[in-house]
């Protein structure tokens, strides 16, 4: 069993929290914590400086929390929540990234997604893409097909 898991040939179940998914969830978890801490700090100390940017920070934090939790949970409902959260995250980093380049007054480089996440080594841009790839590979229909095959 241990060898099966180590080589990645474990039976496919309707979960995302196994193998490389565990690394993905860990990185999402770190972003959830750091984005929450940052947004909380910004809103508590200097909210009036740039309300839009700080509300976006808080929104990004919520998206990361939702993605972390939903990826760690099994089942089709949580799968759908994960897809939604990761798609919102991708849209967020693309829209905020673009706006922060075009309009640096409204978006003074103070959210996780500003400049496509440059302040965080562009991981915020990479993360939703890897997330979607992983969600596709572990989609519930693939798990069901593998189970049916195993039952034959």
């Amino acid at each position: 069993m241990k060898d099966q898991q180590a080589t990645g040939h474990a039976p496919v179940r309707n979960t995302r929290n196994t193998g490389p998914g565990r690394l993905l969830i860990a990185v999402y978890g770190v972003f959830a914590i750091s984005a929450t801490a940052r947004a909380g700090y910004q809103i508590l100390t200097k909210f009036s400086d740039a309300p839009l940017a700080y509300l976006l920070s808080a929104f990004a934090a919520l998206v990361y929390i939702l993605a972390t939790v939903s990826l760690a949970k099994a089942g089709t409902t949580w799968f759908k929540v994960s897809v939604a959260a990761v798609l919102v995250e991708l849209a967020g980093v693309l829209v905020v990234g673009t706006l922060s380049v075009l309009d640096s007054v409204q978006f003074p480089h103070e959210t996780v997604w500003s400049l496509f996440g440059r302040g965080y080594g562009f991981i915020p841009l990479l993360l939703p893409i890897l997330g979607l790839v992983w969600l596709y590979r572990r989609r519930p229909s693939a798990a069901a097909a593998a189970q049916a095959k195993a039952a034959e």
Partner: protein
Amino acid sequence: MDAYFWIILVTGLVSTVVCLGAGILKKAPNDITILSVAAVEAALVVYLVGSIVRVIAGEPIAGEAWEFWGYMATAMLLPPAAIYWSILERTRWSNFVLAAVGVTALVMAARMNQIWY
């Protein structure tokens, strides 16, 4: 950058390289990779104790004090959380989770140094 930062830089980089190497070699987390992450936690404890002593001795923190301690608390939570997460499923991927601790800790230590000075 003070000595505390350099201690965390060295232990963090060593831990990340060891864990990455073990992951690339398709090994599950073992004593060496887990202890390397524990060493990062130990380095953070040294930073914590040193910082408490400096504050008691009257040295001022240039930036926001609670931001500094917030970073410290978060950084100290990461190694135990990663070890817990990695031993629940012992595959090579768990070593990549452990590898993330070292670099994250050194980035946070750099930020903590910026806040202090």
